[in-house]
């Protein structure tokens, strides 16, 4: 097995009295694309939000590139890390949101250079050159100076992907990246993601797009009721899912 980028061990998370994650363990190797599927409420979104510490966890541990995320060990106990070091850890974990969350007061290219310039301290000229390349890669170089409000959902999501890539992350998390899109534009976003996956980017993708999983995923993970119930290659899921819940779920979405 090649080098692990992300490792989650027995992650637990509760919102008040509701236990959303009941011990999730998952390892993702460098260059791997893992799709997480499952019904809404199964905890898949919560799980990837724990990976960049947008949600605190109640038990277990998550490491990215060997670094414990969000917590530090002190006398054998885990304590939440400082805001500063959490922020530093997040620079190597990209995230693409369901609702894009582009900065509406900044143009496409300004969205992309914002964090490299103001977080990493990259000179603006250099950041612009990189951003231009990234926008070209997602097919939007002609939309550089356009505000998000004037872009379609698919275009906004591609800018959001470029924005995540600009930080040169070790791992990108995708939280249902096409769920808020019109059906006719999901393809343009998925093909960008597919290219990334084949280009060796390490990706964890929460999605219902089984077509994408089929062509781009190395592994598919099925979550239900806060745990991973089945894990395997896309072929396994299409041809011979084992778990009853998986069969039910797949029969509904395929």
């Amino acid at each position, binding site marked *: 097995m090649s080098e692990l980028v992300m490792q989650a061990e027995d992650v637990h998370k509760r919102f008040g009295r509701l236990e959303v994650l009941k011990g999730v363990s998952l390892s993702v190797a460098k260059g791997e694309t893992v799709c997480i599927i499952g019904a809404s409420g199964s905890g898949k979104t919560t799980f990837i939000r724990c990976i960049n510490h947008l949600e605190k966890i109640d038990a277990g541990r998550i490491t990215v590139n060997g670094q414990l995320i969000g917590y530090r060990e002190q006398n054998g106990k885990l304590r939440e890390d400082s805001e500063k070091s959490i922020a530093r850890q997040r620079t190597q*974990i990209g995230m693409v949101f369901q609702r894009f969350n582009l900065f509406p*007061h900044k143009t496409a290219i300004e969205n992309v250079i914002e964090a490299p310039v103001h*977080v990493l301290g990259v000179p603006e000229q250099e950041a612009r050159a990189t951003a231009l390349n990234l926008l070209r890669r997602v097919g939007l170089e002609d939309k550089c100076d356009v505000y998000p409000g004037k872009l379609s959902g698919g275009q906004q999501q591609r800018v959001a992907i470029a924005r995540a890539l600009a930080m040169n992350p070790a791992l990108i998390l995708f939280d249902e990246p096409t769920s808020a899109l019109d059906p006719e534009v999901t393809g343009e976003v998925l093909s960008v993601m597919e290219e990334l996956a084949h280009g060796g980017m390490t990706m964890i993708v929460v999605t219902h797009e089984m077509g994408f999983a089929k062509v781009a995923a190395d592994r598919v993970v099925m979550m239900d009721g806060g745990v991973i119930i089945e894990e395997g290659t896309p072929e396994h899921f299409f041809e011979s899912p084992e778990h009853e819940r998986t069969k039910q779920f797949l029969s509904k979405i395929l």
Partner: protein
Amino acid sequence: MLAAVDWHVVWQRLLHPDHVFFRAMYTTVYIAVIAQVMGVLLGLVAALMRSSRLWPLRFLSGLYVLIFRGTPLLVQIFFVYYGANLLLGFTLIPNSLDLGLFSLDGAVVAGILALGVNEGAYMREIIRAGIDSIDTGQMEAAKSLGMRYGLAMRRVILPQAARVIVPPLGNEFNNMLKTTSLVFTIGVYEMFADAEIHYSQTFQPVEFFLAVAFWYLVLTGLWGIVQAAIERRLAASERGDQESFRERLAQAWAPAGAFVRR
């Protein structure tokens, strides 16, 4: 009835105010401007404290609003002017404050301080509403890019919140221009003090209070025009014109721009 009014005095005060009056008007305007700026800054600090994860800061922010919105401004003005130095045991309010180019009378300093601190309590609510109006996804996106809270606020949240904050801020300043009249009670020679003193010398209330009311109307009217222009520009920006928010705000504030329709 109207015969009892000396219209000559009214016209005189409206059309040919003396230089003493203009100095008083100038005092009114700079007290209002400085107090408003102070209110915005204090309001911003208090609004940020309110969402702090440290409870003492949240508590202080709440206490601040409770006290300054819950007690009369006039009481606050008197308290600051007569009581602050005694309470604190050091000279917060000097007899006169020398700022090099000009100096401020102690009463003016006390007046600005009281108005500004009081205004901050109201501005906190306005700024808080502005910040709360921004989708939580914006902060999450900023955080996921490795921004810390302060940077995310400065670069992402506040520039967007400004659109929501600016219109009520304009109303606050309109109020502030008029509320400055209260500081005449601690002996600041501003517009209303000028009217009051002429009245007490002549016993011609209608003439002098009518005239000063007119001049307040001029100030708030001018501000109203500026405010309308700013809001029109902001509304245009909501429609998604392809200029940066900063450019639009700069244009909206440009003095000449205020009178030119797009």
